[in-house]
């Protein structure tokens, strides 16, 4: 089956993955499908900057090697959080940068959007950072990220075989995550 995009880009959907075929205008955002995964990739960092999980569902472009990519992402988040807190025109306090707060408290950015993707971010009080990159038409993913955090608590934090601070290699978590991400509109 194929979906014809008014911006003269034709995508052929094959086995749930969108394959680009014949584009005249670039860059143009991929049409979200109901069958394939609706997210591109996800990162999970702990408070020390260790990348606990990197999951990729649809990422045609890789510019850096994985270590550089993770460091760049973590650095970006740190700077963005700092910037958004410092530029807050409504807050009279100095602000406590670096201290994890409940999602929604304090002043922290939670997403940014370009014409080709949207990056959503959530940090938990324990310092675990969730980053989800999706297509740009995605709505507010704060509840989604909270749900993913619940999956993390159940299948990673409470997994007797998992050592905190190490790479997440829990099959139940991966399966539940993949299944959930497929359902994101």
């Amino acid at each position, binding site marked *: 089956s194929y979906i014809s995009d008014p911006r003269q880009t034709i995508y052929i959907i094959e086995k749930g993955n969108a394959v680009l075929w014949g584009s005249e205008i670039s860059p143009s955002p991929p049409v979200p499908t109901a069958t394939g995964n609706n997210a591109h990739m996800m990162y999970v960092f702990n408070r020390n900057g260790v990348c606990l999980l990197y999951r990729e569902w649809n990422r045609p472009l890789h510019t850096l090697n994985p270590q550089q990519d993770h460091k760049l992402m973590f650095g970006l988040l740190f700077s963005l959080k700092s910037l958004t807190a410092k530029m807050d025109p409504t807050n009279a306090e100095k602000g406590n940068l670096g201290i994890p707060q409940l999602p929604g408290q304090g002043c922290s950015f939670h997403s940014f959007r370009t014409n080709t993707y949207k990056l959503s971010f959530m940090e938990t009080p324990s310092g675990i950072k969730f980053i989800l990159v999706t297509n740009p038409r995605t709505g507010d993913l704060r509840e989604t990220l909270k749900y993913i955090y619940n999956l993390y608590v*159940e299948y990673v934090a409470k997994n*007797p075989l998992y050592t905190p601070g190490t790479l997440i290699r*829990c099959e139940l*978590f991966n399966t539940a995550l993949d299944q959930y991400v497929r359902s994101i509109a």
Partner: protein
Amino acid sequence: MGRDVSESCIDSLLTEMVSTYCNRFYANKPELAARRTEAIGYQVGHQLSERYTMERPCFSDHLEAIKFICKDFWFELFKKQIDNLKTNHRGTFVLQDNRFRWLTRMSIDQSPENGTSEELSIMADNKTMQSMHLYFPCGIIRGALSNLGIPCAVSADISNLPACSFVIRIKA
């Protein structure tokens, strides 16, 4: 008035117990760690069976006692009953729980990234660690039955997570 305990607390405590015995007290001596956690389970099972059989008359035979373990006892511990009971009528019973509560969150990444011998040994370690978590419930069953006058040996089989089978062999 009942007293409640958070289930997360129990789960974390059990995880830490196994981890401490395996990695600290008896590091590199898994048989001793296994025996110790099984012994702790024995004490727990002994006391719990006392508590849960307070209002009941004695059991007429072994099968009745095993059925008590499968139904009332398991329900008190895990809010569900044993799903399947098999016996050879010669002293061996197999209790199958299709979703054993203490194993529901346990998982490892089965796919080795490049299949190196290091990865494979990590997978073998993981399997061992998984089985370490079963000595405690085996001890609980053994302790409970022992208090009901039935000495036995109990082992577990986790070839099919999260289902778990407990094999009870009654000593003649």
